[in-house]
């Protein structure tokens, strides 16, 4: 029996809340938030010693559960992956326990998930934004955040006073800009706006 299947069978025996998750590649399980840390700890003890990724998911506005965090664990001895997914119970204030104590590498992954989705990891040693600046008011990868962005102030008050410039909603000009797949001619395949009938000055017909 492969290491991943063994480990998952052992998990299910110890934690009845652990269920199989639909998957197309690696074995995957759903874990209730309360069991997340013990389950990750058990997997680490079972040989899944490397945390390769922590990723946030926003299913949709109004979905319940709305936010899920997905962990990918690798066994460096058996060369097998296990995927662990945990739903955040609360939609308004999504929260999960931090895995940074088990794998120091989880630190920055969780900071990124916090930065992009606003998922708070309790017990994280230093939960700050990692890509956007401190004080940025939005979570950009949430489904209700527009790609172009929302007008806001720049982080540096002195520079803002000097230049009178803030972050603006990016002009989309018929965008978003999409690449065409399968084109042989690279000039035709490069990313471009598919609908060039409107610009910032000439409004989108029917909008």
């Amino acid at each position: 029996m492969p290491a991943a299947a063994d480990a998952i069978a052992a998990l299910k025996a110890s934690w009845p809340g652990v269920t199989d998750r639909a998957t197309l590649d690696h074995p995957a399980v759903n874990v209730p938030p309360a069991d997340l840390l013990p389950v990750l700890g058990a997997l680490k003890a079972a040989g899944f010693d490397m945390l390769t990724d922590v990723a946030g998911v926003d299913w949709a506005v109004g979905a319940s559960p709305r936010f899920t965090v997905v962990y990918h664990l690798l066994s460096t001895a058996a060369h097998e992956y296990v995927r662990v997914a945990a739903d955040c119970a609360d939609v308004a204030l999504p929260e999960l326990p931090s895995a940074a104590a088990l794998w120091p590498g989880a630190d920055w992954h969780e900071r990124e998930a916090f930065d992009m989705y606003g998922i708070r990891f309790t017990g994280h040693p230093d939960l700050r934004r990692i890509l956007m600046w401190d004080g940025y008011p939005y979570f950009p990868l949430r489904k209700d955040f527009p790609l172009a962005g929302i007008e806001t102030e720049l982080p540096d008050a002195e520079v803002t006073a000097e230049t009178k410039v803030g972050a603006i909603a990016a002009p989309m000009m018929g965008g978003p800009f999409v690449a065409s797949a399968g084109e042989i001619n690279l000039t035709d395949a490069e990313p471009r706006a598919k609908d060039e009938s409107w610009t910032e000055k000439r409004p989108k017909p029917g909008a």
Partner: protein
Amino acid sequence: MVSANSELTYNSKIEGEVIVSRADAVINWIRSSSMWPMPMGLACCAIELMATGGARFDIARFGAEVMRFSPKQSDVMIVAGTVTYKMASPLRRIYDQMSDPKWVIAMGACASTGGMYRSYAVLQGVDRIVPVDVYISGCPPRPEALLDALMKLQGKVKKEPSFSKLLSA
């Protein structure tokens, strides 16, 4: 045998002929012939900027080989790459720290307009926060394009009323 130099004033036999010129021409010639770049390498354009500094393209032919990583010592900021909003403030600060006279080259699509990054995180053109003298198209532009921009900037500097600006400063 060495004799003591008794020449006390200008000697045209030693120093050559006197040249009469306009102060603007002299000042601009000096300025445009040694423009020390502040390499603001933020993305892939910086690789082309490095190539321009290398032996094959040799930016030294245009007097701009001395890349200064101190804004106090540099004349032209080459913004090479995507400027994120997070980086916009440090960029403006560095520009403010450069001593006058100073110029800016926006290298490539991203620095000029935001390029393909029409998104929440990217400054839509570096000319929103610093005054740009020369824009370069391309993604990324080839080193020849950067050299061309440098020559265009030199042409622009040579037309500046530098002397009257110095007097009024």
